[in-house]
């Protein structure tokens, strides 16, 4: 699809800008642009649920990252040496060669093997009564995964409170 390819090229350019900028606030704005491009790509790939969640999660992540940068007085990075970027680029080139050979084996873009989803698509409405099949999957057919995800969110809240609260008690 030409729309998805154009959006992917936009996201790659935005990601390269975010990685190479010396100013931290500018890098955060570039990552925000990459996330919003991803939300548009989800709309073209016929996934409206994911598009809504991606936009709001992106905005919240931006707010929290700006709070972290706001602590520093100067928001720029020091220069690093050139040996380790060259090594990293060689490793990434080898990785991309192997990835290309592996990507030739999976079925082409646009023809999925819908082995498990046949039952969800054809009998989802009768068995659960929900019109939104994605909600029927995450809350009826696979509700244990949602329980695990609620546990992870709870653990993240406890973790943040445990790390932050120690600071006030140090005095």
């Amino acid at each position, binding site marked *: 699809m030409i729309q998805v390819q154009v959006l992917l090229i936009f996201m*790659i350019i935005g990601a390269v800008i975010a990685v190479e900028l010396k100013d931290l606030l500018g890098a955060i704005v570039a990552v925000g642009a990459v996330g919003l491009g991803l939300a548009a790509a989800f709309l073209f790939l016929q996934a409206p649920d*994911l598009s809504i*969640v991606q936009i709001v*999660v992106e905005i919240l992540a931006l707010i929290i990252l700006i709070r972290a940068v706001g602590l520093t007085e100067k928001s720029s990075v020091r220069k690093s040496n050139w040996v380790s*970027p060259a090594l990293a680029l060689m490793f990434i080139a080898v990785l991309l060669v192997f990835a290309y050979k592996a990507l030739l084996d999976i079925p082409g873009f646009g023809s999925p093997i819908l082995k498990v989803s046949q039952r969800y698509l054809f009998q989802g409405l009768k068995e659960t009564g929900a019109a939104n099949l*994605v909600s029927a999957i995450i809350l009826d057919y696979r509700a244990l995964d949602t329980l695990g995800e609620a546990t992870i*969110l709870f653990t993240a809240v406890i973790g943040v409170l445990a*790390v932050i609260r120690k600071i006030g008690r140090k005095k």
Partner: protein
Amino acid sequence: MTEYFLCWILFCVGLYCVLTKRNLIKIIIGLGIMEYAVNLFFILLGYKKDGVFPILSKTLETKPEMMVDPLPQALILTSIVIGLATTCLLVSLAMHIYEKYGTYDVRELRKLKG
């Protein structure tokens, strides 16, 4: 095929950022880019040519044969929210490190105290 390969290039841009940058905030940004690439790859696998979104409705008369795969969408919905929780925890750890050492540079963290 080109979409899959472009998605892998996006993943490698994030990987390069995690491997070579020295500032903690840049490392968190690189991790975020890697998460976007992985989520996009799953949804690319589930797309059906000329498909419609997997929501039935009375007025639109969509048949289940024309829909895209709903199972990767359900799994990635959970993954996006987990990515947000991970980013929040990383940022709180980074702020704690800044409070203790005064800098976000990872080369300074190797000093032993005392």
